[in-house]
């Protein structure tokens, strides 16, 4: 009993010290850099730190822009802005890009960043990367060094997607001497460096003292990983973390309603929550059946009930932050009578095999209830995500309906691949995408608008809603990226008042 008492006393002492420490750093004299840190809660921990060979959104989310930098990056409005390149020029035939690199940039290992590293990094995509998306850079013909601070990239044909790909992880710049242990020791030019990694718990990023740009306001950031949304909510309520990067249970936001303690930020994402229909087998190989489904679903009611009304409604595979967005929500208004008419009085039994993720399970119950009104009986089967869902639905295509959030940016092209799990096959769509990538910017926009309309008209799938980016932060935390439209969670401007 006495021993317990002692431990409680020690614990109390530690807490008191911690509190004092916090107070000290907060009140330190101006002029000296404040030793401040923040903890941010995330849902999925990276399997390792190598995004060149391991799939998964968690790795670039933590490292891109923060630890690794590319020549260009995406800003919060979705524009491509300079990063390691000061500026770039595009030749008249739109096949040659000349990047003028920033000088005095150093990797965290101390090695200087030069055009040789650009050549090395981009050649490495072809030779060493193991991800499917590396095909996006197949359009690159050759990468050359003109002088130490000038790199020239020549394309096989004009491509509108090239520069955008350069803003993703594909364009991350690696040091020629820093790729020996990518899974554990990332070496980049970014404002933060890897501090420590406690597997299963957290990753700490420390400020890079030799950063070339504006020094980050924080001395360190801890990325804490939670498997459970409620546990993450409680961590913020009790002060274990300062920010929830992505709220997984929107109804729980009421806990954070007090504006004196918390700030709720709602931004947008690239995540289209798609009700996928198997175009490759009955009944949804019939366009009319697919159109019936689109008419049968009251999207507004679905969003209000399944996701607390947070997020937006979309009618095709384009989020509003893309330049070729058009409002397509009016294409298939909620009309159960029309849906029944399209089905021609027939009734169907279908398998709705969904990942066991909160948004999918919630949406599926609404979809089932609404489809039942028009004579489609859907049996919901939640599959363990990612392993079983990827195997059964994504790889084998054994499903009629499914629900998944397609988070990749500018991913309309997945519908052009008829072996993709949608089984959508319309050559016209593929032609539009190809001509969009090679045409001028205006042609690209026009073609992609047409492609999005074609998808919607064909009812290749149904788009339930656009996933919101819901961030909750303690009051006083500033510089949070409101929109999650790139692959990274940009910590560059994150600060605490």
């Amino acid at each position, binding site marked *: 009993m006495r021993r317990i008492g002692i431990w409680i006393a020690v614990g109390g002492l530690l807490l008191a010290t911690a509190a004092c420490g916090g107070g000290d750093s907060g009140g330190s004299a101006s002029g000296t850099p404040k030793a401040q840190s923040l903890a941010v809660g995330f849902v999925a921990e990276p399997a390792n730190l190598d995004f060149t060979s391991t799939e998964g959104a968690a790795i670039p989310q933590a490292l891109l822009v923060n630890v690794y930098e590319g020549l260009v990056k995406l800003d919060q409005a979705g524009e491509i802005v300079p990063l390691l390149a000061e500026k770039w020029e595009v030749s008249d035939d739109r096949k040659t890009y000349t990047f003028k690199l920033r000088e005095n940039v150093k990797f965290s290992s101390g090695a200087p960043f030069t055009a040789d590293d650009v050549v090395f990094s981009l050649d490495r995509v072809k030779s060493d990367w193991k991800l499917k998306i590396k095909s996006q850079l197949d359009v690159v013909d050759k990468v050359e060094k003109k002088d130490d601070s000038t790199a020239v990239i020549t394309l096989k044909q004009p491509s509108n997607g090239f520069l955008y790909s350069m803003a993703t992880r594909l364009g991350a710049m690696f040091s020629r001497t820093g790729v020996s242990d990518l899974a554990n020791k990332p070496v980049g030019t970014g404002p933060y460096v890897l501090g420590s990694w406690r597997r299963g718990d957290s990753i700490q990023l420390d400020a890079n003292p030799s950063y070339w740009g504006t020094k980050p306001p924080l001395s360190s950031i801890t990325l804490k990983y939670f498997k459970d*949304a*409620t546990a993450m909510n409680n961590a913020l309520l009790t002060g274990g973390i300062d920010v929830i990067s992505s709220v997984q*249970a*929107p*109804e*729980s936001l*009421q*806990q954070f309603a007090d504006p004196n303690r918390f700030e709720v930020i709602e931004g947008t994402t690239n995540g289209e929550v798609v009700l996928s229909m198997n175009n490759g087998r009955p009944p949804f190989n019939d366009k009319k059946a697919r159109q019936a489904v689109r008419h049968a679903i*009251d999207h*507004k*009611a679905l969003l*209000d*009930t*399944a996701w*607390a009304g947070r997020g937006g409604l979309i009618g095709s595979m384009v989020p509003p932050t893309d330049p070729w967005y058009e409002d397509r929500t009016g294409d298939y208004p909620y009309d159960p009578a029309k849906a029944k008419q399209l089905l021609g009085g027939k009734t169907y039994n279908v398998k709705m095999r969904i990942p*066991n993720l909160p948004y999918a*399970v*919630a949406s*599926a*119950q*609404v979809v*089932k*209830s*609404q489809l039942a009104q028009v004579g489609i009986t859907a*049996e*919901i*089967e*939640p*599959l*363990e995500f990612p392993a*079983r869902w990827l195997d059964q639905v994504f790889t084998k295509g054994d499903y009629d309906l499914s629900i998944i959030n397609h988070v990749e940016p500018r991913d309309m092209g997945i519908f052009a691949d008829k072996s993709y799990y949608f089984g959508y096959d319309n050559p016209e769509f593929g032609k539009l995408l190809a001509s969009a990538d090679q045409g001028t910017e205006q042609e690209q926009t026009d073609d992609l608008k047409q492609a999005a309309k074609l998808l919607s008209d064909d009812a290749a799938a149904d788009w339930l809603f656009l996933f919101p980016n819901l961030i909750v932060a303690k009051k006083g935390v500033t510089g949070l990226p409101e929109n999650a439209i790139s692959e990274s969670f940009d910590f560059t401007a994150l600060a605490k008042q």
Partner: protein
Amino acid sequence: MRGRTNAGLVAGGALVGLVVLTAVASFFWTPHDPTLVDAAQKLREPGGGYPLGADKFGRDTFSQLMVGARTTLYVGVVAVGIAAVLGVPLGMIAGMTPRGWLSELIMRVNDLVFAFPALLLAVMFGAVYGAGTLTAMIAIGVATVPAFARVARAATLQVMVTDYVLAARAAGRRRPAIAVRHVLPNIGSMLIVQASVSFAIAILAEAALSFLGFGTRPPTPSWGRMLQESQELLFSTPRLALWPGLAIALAVLGFNLLGDGLRDYLDPKLRRIR
């Protein structure tokens, strides 16, 4: 002694009766379709045709509870059924051949299964064969087999040394006949008690599995899943967690009380006192 025994039995019987009655009634009538999503009724307060209010999908909580009782009983009956059908014969064989290798084999395999947590087994079944009510029931049932086998064996050992069994054996009755005529009727009371207790455990297991997403598939109402869906609203609308939680607690209490009461009631020694 007598009064206490009856009180437990009566209270347990009443609670179990209530659950059974609710489940039966749900086949004929519920206030609303329990799976109908109605955005207009989202998080509706209790009252006006919605006696316990509605959840975030606008589904009537009371109707869901009623149909959830059905799921609960269904799981209990099938899981306990599997356990009894497999466990009782195994236990009786082990009890009637106490020194044979077969008895040894049965009881050691029993120990093996007994050491395996029922929930873990169910999660494994769910991962391999797909989550669903049936897989959950089979897993819970298999995990409960050892409990029945042990009770059946212990009771059989007692019965085997009674005078009437010795007489039957002396008269040349074959073992299967003895098992059916003499052993089974005399260990029945203990098995009923075990069934009642296992029923309570099965209800809890199903609720836990549904809470974890390995049990009853949505949108079929289940008390465990109702609890899980109310989790994110725990701070703003606690009643959504209260009702299914209360239902689970009362049903489990009911079956436990019934089991206890039956044991006292059916025990010949205690009966003599009365």
